[in-house]
């Protein structure tokens, strides 16, 4: 029997038991669809985080006070449990290093903003003029040269305080100090859970005076290029160790490293959910096996007849094998469609989440469907091929 005839005969057989075939195809399709949709979700989450990180800056190197080892992890450094503080002089020295395009010392805190009888608590960023370009923040109006007494308002803050007119040039009070608005940020939205539309930016010296501190929260460094990130990181560590009396008491992290960690974690998560979804495919495979075993029992007489009219066992095996192939192929294709539709639905419902199923997941889903279907057919096809024609013809 030719391959074409085997495929045609098996297809006709699959089509003749329409409801049963449709149910198997549906089970397979749901498995493949689940793999595709869940990986799209995982991949979407990964891309979302990566994009968020990328929005923080380009070729970014971040200096935190405190050593991870000496202060019980990065959280320790965040909480300020540090043996020696970062200072503005440290930041200026870093600015002189080769490979550093720009740097920005950073202080954060909260203070009360008041103007024209209005009052609210705001998050305050203290930085230099480079803070905005490093953090990819743009000004809608005005400018920020980080001269003393300048303040830049987030878009929402500016709207709240100066809804009727231009905020630039207006006077405000932040804490116990007076500032003149020099600019308004354009709409930035949330980035890593931090809404830049509701912050104010002041020169770092003013922030230090406001918060009564000489230290810095962070130093942000933008390297010249991607290739310069590692040398800048090493040079910064060396420089600060020298400046801190030979003690390596700062943590220098790169955006790349953090990004890579998130990438790895979310990549593993995507694989994990894909794996869980693949279990449903395995279940579908068992369903295929069960249904095909039933089919062999129901079609015993037909198999006996095929043998009586001269079909060798191998041809009978190939026929059942091809039936499983058709079912898996249809299940895989239909599942791919479900997966694409599901991912499209997710993107429609959550436009922020770039839930595009990766090509490998679709390919792996379809391939797994084919493999499980074909594997599941081995036992029934073998059983059909081994049937004794005399017994089979009598329907036993």
């Amino acid at each position, binding site marked *: *029997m*030719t391959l074409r*005839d085997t495929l045609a*005969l098996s297809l*006709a*057989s699959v089509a*003749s038991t329409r409801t049963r075939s449709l149910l198997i195809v549906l089970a397979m399709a749901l498995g493949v669809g689940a793999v595709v949709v869940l990986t799209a979700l995982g991949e979407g989450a990964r891309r979302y985080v990566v994009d968020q990180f990328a929005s923080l800056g380009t070729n970014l190197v971040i200096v935190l006070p405190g050593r991870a080892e000496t202060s019980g992890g990065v959280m320790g450094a965040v909480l300020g449990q540090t043996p020696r503080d970062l200072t503005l002089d440290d930041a200026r020295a870093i600015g002189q290093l080769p490979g550093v395009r720009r740097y920005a010392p950073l202080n954060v805190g909260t203070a009360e903003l008041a103007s024209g009888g209005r009052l609210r608590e705001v998050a305050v960023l203290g930085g230099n003029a480079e803070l905005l370009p490093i953090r990819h923040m743009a000004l809608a109006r005005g400018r920020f040269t980080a001269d003393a007494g300048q303040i830049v308002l987030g878009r929402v803050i500016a709207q709240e305080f100066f809804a009727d007119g231009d905020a630039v040039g207006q006077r405000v009070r932040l804490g116990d100090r007076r500032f003149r608005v020099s600019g308004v940020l354009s709409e930035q939205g949330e980035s890593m859970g931090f809404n830049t539309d509701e912050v104010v930016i002041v020169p770092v010296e003013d922030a230090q005076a406001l918060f009564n501190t000489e230290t810095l929260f962070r130093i942000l460094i933008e390297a010249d290029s991607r290739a310069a990130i590692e040398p800048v990181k090493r040079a910064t560590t060396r420089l600060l160790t020298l400046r801190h009396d030979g003690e390596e008491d700062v943590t220098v992290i790169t955006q790349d490293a953090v990004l890579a960690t998130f990438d790895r974690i979310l990549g593993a998560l995507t694989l994990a959910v894909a794996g869980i979804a693949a279990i449903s495919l395995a279940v579908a495979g068992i369903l295929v096996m069960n249904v095909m075993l039933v089919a062999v029992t129901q079609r015993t*007489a*037909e198999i*006996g*007849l*095929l*043998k*009586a*009219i*001269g*079909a*060798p*066992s*191998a*041809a009978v095996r190939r026929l059942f094998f091809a039936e499983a192939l058709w079912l898996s192929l249809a299940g895989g294709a239909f599942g791919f469609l479900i997966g694409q539709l599901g991912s499209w639905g997710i993107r429609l419902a959550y436009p922020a989440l770039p839930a595009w199923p990766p090509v490998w997941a679709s390919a792996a889903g379809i391939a797994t469907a084919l493999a499980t279907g074909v594997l599941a057919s081995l036992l029934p096809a073998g059983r059909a091929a081994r049937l004794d*024609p*005399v017994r089979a*013809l009598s329907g036993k």
Partner: protein
Amino acid sequence: MTAAAAAMIRLEGIVRCFRMGDQEVRALDGIDLAIGAGEYLSVMGPSGSGKSTLLNVLGLLDRPDAGRYILDGADVAALSEPAQAQVRRNRIGFVFQSFHLVPRLTAFENIELPLTLEGIAPAERRARVEAALEAIGLTDRAHHKSNELSGGQRQRVAIARATILQPAVLLADEPTGNLDHRIGAEVVALLEDLHRRGTTLIVVTHDRELGARAKRHIAMRDGKIVGDER
């Protein structure tokens, strides 16, 4: 050359045993039989006499436990499974009491099956099946499934399927067993027509009237041939 040597089919000391619980039943107990090309035989005997087992061995559906089966000079009982399948396809046709049409296939497709198994091209298959349908007078029923055909029509389709590759031997197991007398007579006429055109026809039956129509009568009892009359 003796008659036995010239025979197309030669069975020598064929034994076929089955286990029924603790007991061993000899369904065929040392069968010697020579059948010439173009003969018309009936095999008769009571239930359990071994006539169906003999037909299965002749049709290569069952392997004997002992003895030789020579078909056209070759010992076919010793052949491999695929080789036996090929002999079945090309040399032997089966007609069953219960027709054994594939229910999801049409009359046309049922007759086409052996040609498909043989790997014959679709265009030639179509021509040969159409000719066969015309020969059995069922051209207008070509695309009806078996449940849309009468018993006689089903058996005629089964005969067309059994003979589409022009086998040398046609084995019929109670071919009229499920048909009324008139339709049965039509089917017998069709089988005898094939015999007249040279096909060796072996009919296993309980029906004395049908058995009597053959030119050679084999009687069986307890796995042995107890009568062979011409």
